[in-house]
């Protein structure tokens, strides 16, 4: 495969073909579905896609025996994204090496949710990132909950979010008290990995370029994409992209890439917006209204972490951000 990894600067340069098309029944305004379309555009036709259980499994077929994929696609179990990618890539390498298949490499893409890759399939993802298969990319679409089962907390659900497993109540006013796991930083800590990034559907060219860089990096790679979920985050479906952009503009979501040991921020808001602009637009944070202590804590967390992100951008090296836990 000839690598063409020049950076795309204009929408007109983007591949006009779609490989994630109609024939699915995702919710209106589904961020994960919008992300799927962009990621597959970037990966191209020479791609096998593996889908761990999650929204992008259950919402993409069901009643009509239709498929939204024009490239080969196979389901894998909720915790099996890592080994599904490795097994697929290993098969291509073995068959090509042994002369049983034409020598044309194939992109292997695992598009899994935060439940699938940050929780139950975390071990398998880590195993996969320790290997050396080329053209193998794990994209984690992060809607910050187990959304298709009815919005249960995962380890990437942010502090202060109300979910059906972490509802806000009289004795637990905060809702989810755990802090969001930084999966991309953990992925970057696997020696040998050449490309790790975070992305957002509000920055489509950045996402597309990152997918292309990742698939051309020569090693298994990982991209963590934030995808708003109208059902779980409780916002109007037409605001999905706006919410995604606000996550970046408030600094709640940080766009960065780590390429062959060198860190850089992909978006540097000159003045970060107040996190209130982000959380007041979402019903999952509605219970925090009036809880100034909790809101101040979230703002402090973002500000403290940004000191680390900016230092990483200056030094090109990874730092693990740390903030004290919330004290009520």
């Amino acid at each position, binding site marked *: 495969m000839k690598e063409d990894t020049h950076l795309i600067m204009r929408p007109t340069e983007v591949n006009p073909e779609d490989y994630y098309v109609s024939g699915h029944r995702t919710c209106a305004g589904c961020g994960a579905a919008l992300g799927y379309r962009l990621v597959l555009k970037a990966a191209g036709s*020479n791609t*096998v896609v593996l889908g761990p259980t999650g929204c992008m499994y259950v919402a993409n077929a069901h009643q009509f025996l239709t498929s939204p994929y024009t*490239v080969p696609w196979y389901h894998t*179990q909720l915790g099996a994204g890592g080994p599904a990618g*490795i097994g697929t890539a290993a098969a291509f390498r*073995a068959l090509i090496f042994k002369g049983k298949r034409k020598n044309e490499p194939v992109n292997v893409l695992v598009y899994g949710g935060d439940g699938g890759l940050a929780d139950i399939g975390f*071990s398998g993802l880590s195993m996969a990132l320790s290997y050396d298969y080329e053209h193998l990319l794990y994209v984690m679409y992060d809607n910050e909950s187990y959304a298709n089962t009815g919005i249960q907390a995962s380890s990437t659900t942010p502090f202060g979010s109300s979910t059906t497993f972490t509802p806000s109540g009289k004795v637990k006013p905060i809702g989810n008290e755990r802090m969001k796991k930084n999966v991309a930083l953990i992925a970057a800590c696997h020696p040998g990995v050449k490309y790790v990034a975070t992305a957002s559907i509000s920055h489509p060219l950045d996402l597309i370029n990152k997918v292309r860089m990742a698939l051309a990096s020569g090693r298994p790679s990982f991209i963590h994409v934030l995808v708003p979920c109208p059902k779980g985050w409780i916002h109007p479906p037409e605001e999905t992209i706006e919410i995604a952009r606000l996550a970046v503009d408030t600094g709640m979501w940080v766009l960065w890439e780590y390429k062959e040991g060198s860190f850089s921020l992909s978006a540097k808001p000159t003045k970060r917006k107040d996190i209130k602009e982000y959380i007041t637009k979402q019903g999952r944070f509605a219970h925090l209204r009036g809880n100034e202590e909790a809101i101040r804590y979230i703002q402090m967390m973002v500000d403290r972490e940004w000191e680390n992100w900016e230092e990483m951008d200056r030094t090109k090296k990874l730092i693990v951000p740390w903030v004290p836990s919330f004290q009520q």
Partner: protein
Amino acid sequence: MKAAIKKQMWTGARAIAEAVRMADVDVIAAYPIRPYTGIMNALASMIAKGEFQAEYIVCDSEHSQFEAVKHASAVGARTFVGSSGTGLIYGTEAAIVTALGQLPVVGVVGCRALDDPGNFGMEWNDALLFRDVGWIMAWARDPQEALDMILAAYRTAEDPKVLLPHFIALDGAAITHVASPVLPPDKQHVEEFLPPYKPLHPLDPKSDSISKAMHVAPSLIGPEQRKVLDVAMKRAKNEVIPQAWKLWGDLTGRRYPAFMDAKDLADAECVLLTMGAYSKNLEYVVEKYRGKNIKLGSIRLRYFRPFPAEELKEAVKDTKAIGIVDFSYSLGSPSYGSILYNEVKAALYDMDTRPLIMDFIFAGGREMTIPDLDQATNLLIGAAKTGKNAERPVRWMTVRGEDI
């Protein structure tokens, strides 16, 4: 002049590894747990030395192991996997969807008791937990048969009429770790017996653009998805497995009855029945009792899935009593019997005259000795003669304390 093939002294682990090499397997997924691990050690060593080429994936768990080979098989690779005991159970979810994906993965179970107490004895409950979900399951008697069964397993599993995953069960330690003479097959015979795997619908952009295992409403395909596996199992039983063993016998001269093996059955009044390595102990006891003019015979099932019910009915039609020598348990089951016992009872239910069926449970991984087998045999003979003991057909053997 062709060099004559020499007999080797191989453990079951080594014999299986040699079979995997002969089958030119493409992708292997490994994770350690005794006693099956020796197979993966042997394969890793062969690959490191350049004796054969395969992608060898060192996994983070059995779940990943079984998922990795499932997906490699979907692309069109020939795959090998295995486990033992609790490890196999950890991979269960992946193993079940392998059958539903109609992927001809071949695996080995080095049978081992499930935890607790970190039990490393031999018991069948690990393998038998897979009895209902579409895996073909064969039990090898010794390293030679283990090698032959691996090759037959790929042939059977990959047959377009079947397309089911296939376990070979090895009685832990007794086969995996004990060396015995093995005659490796001739390379040409293997090539003739086992053509390269050609998947019908590989998951490859160069092939059709398929979407596999979509999330589809059960009302649309749920029953049919299971039914195709049922049909595949029947085809394996009626056509593909018998034909494979006939061809293997014709090629190598090493002939096996397809589904079950028997000793001194013709005039036997009492029959001991088991699977796997301990069938040799049964044969030894049969010889001993025959020396005392007691009409005892033995049966060894080679396949548990598909279960050879017709063959078994025919074999025991003149028998008074059958004693199951069983290394499994099934707590709370009918008669509180073991798994193999209840399978045999179900298989023989519609015979015109059914023999007495007794169950001798060797559960928990404690070694079965010849005196234990003698004791079981005497109970069986006594029950057949006098009807005594017949009201208590299920016996826990080797248990200290009362068998309540």
